[in-house]
């Protein structure tokens, strides 16, 4: 299989940086919301929305589109940034995040915002929904794929493993999921709160095709996505090793930035850091 080109990788990295900036601005304007988990998955979501997924912002319900389910719904700012920069809605809406009357609800709401496939926010439920969509697409003979993003704390939910069984049982090879393995959840390190390892072996044991990658290595993400498409008879899980708060030195690996928005001063510093890193 052809490896992703260097120019594509450079473009995507630039896009990921844009997403991170929008996430930070959005959260600062809202003064609440989930910073760490939005930043950790920014490279994955960039690869999906700006490279891999077939979708049409002008026709969000296009029948043959690929789907994305944000099972870890608290990373809503990340999804909103991806949708806004794709052109699903005006960028100016982003500053209304979490405000009364805004379509950008605290957690994604499919009734208020185009491009959201289904409302999420209660952890552990997205993969089941992704499977249902995948089964429906197969019944219709459509080749569309279904992507789903889970948190590593989220996989402590029992329903995730019900869905893991179902996807393998029904051979849903049009499902490609990610675990954003940033090692942190709300109360601390995942493995201290509730031991989740060995993640890769667990998914393999449940009958999935598994890739173990660096979730900030754009080339690795794209290559894994391409390879997943060639796997027949099995769903794919991409275990993405990430850093919570990735991109902003003073947020990285800090458990308290799970659910804390940047202050205006932090925003200034953070945007500067992102700009300087690119040079």
């Amino acid at each position, binding site marked *: 299989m052809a490896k992703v080109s260097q120019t594509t990788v450079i473009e995507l990295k630039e896009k990921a940086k844009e997403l991170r900036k929008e996430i930070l601005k959005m959260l600062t304007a809202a003064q609440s919301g989930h910073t760490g988990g939005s930043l950790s998955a920014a490279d994955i979501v960039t690869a999906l929305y700006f490279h891999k997924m077939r979708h049409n912002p002008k026709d969000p319900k296009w029948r043959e589109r690929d789907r994305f389910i944000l099972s870890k719904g608290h990373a809503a700012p990340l999804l909103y940034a991806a949708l806004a920069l794709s052109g699903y809605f005006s960028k100016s809406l982003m500053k209304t995040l979490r405000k009364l009357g805004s379509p950008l609800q605290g957690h994604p*709401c*499919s*009734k208020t915002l185009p491009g959201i*496939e*289904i*409302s*999420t*926010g*209660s952890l552990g*439920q*997205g*993969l*089941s*929904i*992704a*499977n*249902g*969509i*995948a*089964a*429906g*697409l197969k*019944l*219709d003979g459509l080749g569309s794929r279904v992507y789903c993003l889970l948190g590593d704390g989220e996989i402590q939910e*029992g*329903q995730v493993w*019900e*869905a893991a*069984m*179902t996807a393998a*049982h*029904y051979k849903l090879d049009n499902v490609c999921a990610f675990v954003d393995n940033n090692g942190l959840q709300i109360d601390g390190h995942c493995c201290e709160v509730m031991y989740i390892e060995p993640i890769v072996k667990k998914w393999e044991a449940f009958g999935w095709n598994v890739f173990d990658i660096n979730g900030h290595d754009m080339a690795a993400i794209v290559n894994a996505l391409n390879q997943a498409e060639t796997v027949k008879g099995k769903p794919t899980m991409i275990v993405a090793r990430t850093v919570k708060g990735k991109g902003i030195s003073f947020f990285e690996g800090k458990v308290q930035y799970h659910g804390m928005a940047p202050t205006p001063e932090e925003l200034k510093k953070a945007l500067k850091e992102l700009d300087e890193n690119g040079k």
Partner: protein
Amino acid sequence: MANKAVATRDAYGEALLELGKRRLDIVVLDADLSGSTKTGKFGKVFPDRFFNIGVAEQDMIGMASGLSLTGKLPFASTFAVFETGRAWEQIRQTVCYSNLNVKLVATHSGITVGEDGASHQAVEDIALMRVLPNMTVIVPSDGYETTQVINAIADEYFGPVYVRLGRSKVPSVMPERYRFKIGKAHVFSMGKDANIIAAGIMVSMALEAAEILKKNGIDAGVINMSTIKPLDTKTLLKAAKSCRVLVTAEEHSIIGGLGSAVSEFLSEHYPVPVVKIGIRDEFGCSGSSEELLKFYGLTPDKIVKTIRKALK
């Protein structure tokens, strides 16, 4: 009467199969109870459109939701206690919040489950479903009405519906000319002395009770309130205004069910006492279905006594 005594779950199995022949968008999900819920009939004929999810009710609701997002019309079935209890939050977060066209048809509701006992007898499922925005709640009274309900929720209504069915055979009560409409109660008769607002298996008992009362010179009307949400408030108001004693009868806790729905409405719009017949804030237990109905006071006789006492 339109047909003989059948369990509403049997009528469901037949109706679903016929619906499946007629509509290719119908998909059916079950959680390892397809023999009991009767969805297995559909599964045998349409294996490609049937998903047994195993003992995983939460995942079943998620799968059903996903299927509905691709334009399929999913029917998801298991026992009422597992459907509404184990998967309540999935129903709330996904099916109702996003107003998905998912039909939840649960069997083995109430105490007439019988010998399996309290763990399997849902007496709170109506309450759990009724409280959810966007949810419609229907409790058919017999097999004939069940068939109509299944077709109506598929053909005439887009959105989440909870249908509550039973395990045991129930007498046929609905007249041949009856046509089910969501939110429309069926008035057998309006009484001057009392009116019994009933649902499910209690409709046939209410009719029996009214017969007995009539012989004793008491005019009791019977109303089948098969849609519990949205409630047919017009008919309810008429029933409340036309009589001296209003009684509700349900095979469900008197907390949160039909009796509560009736009281909630009347307390705001026409405050009259509502006498409630149902399970009184307790769990069920093992026994035969007939024994349990007597034990919990869900009988025509109990309805008769309750009305007599209230009229004094």
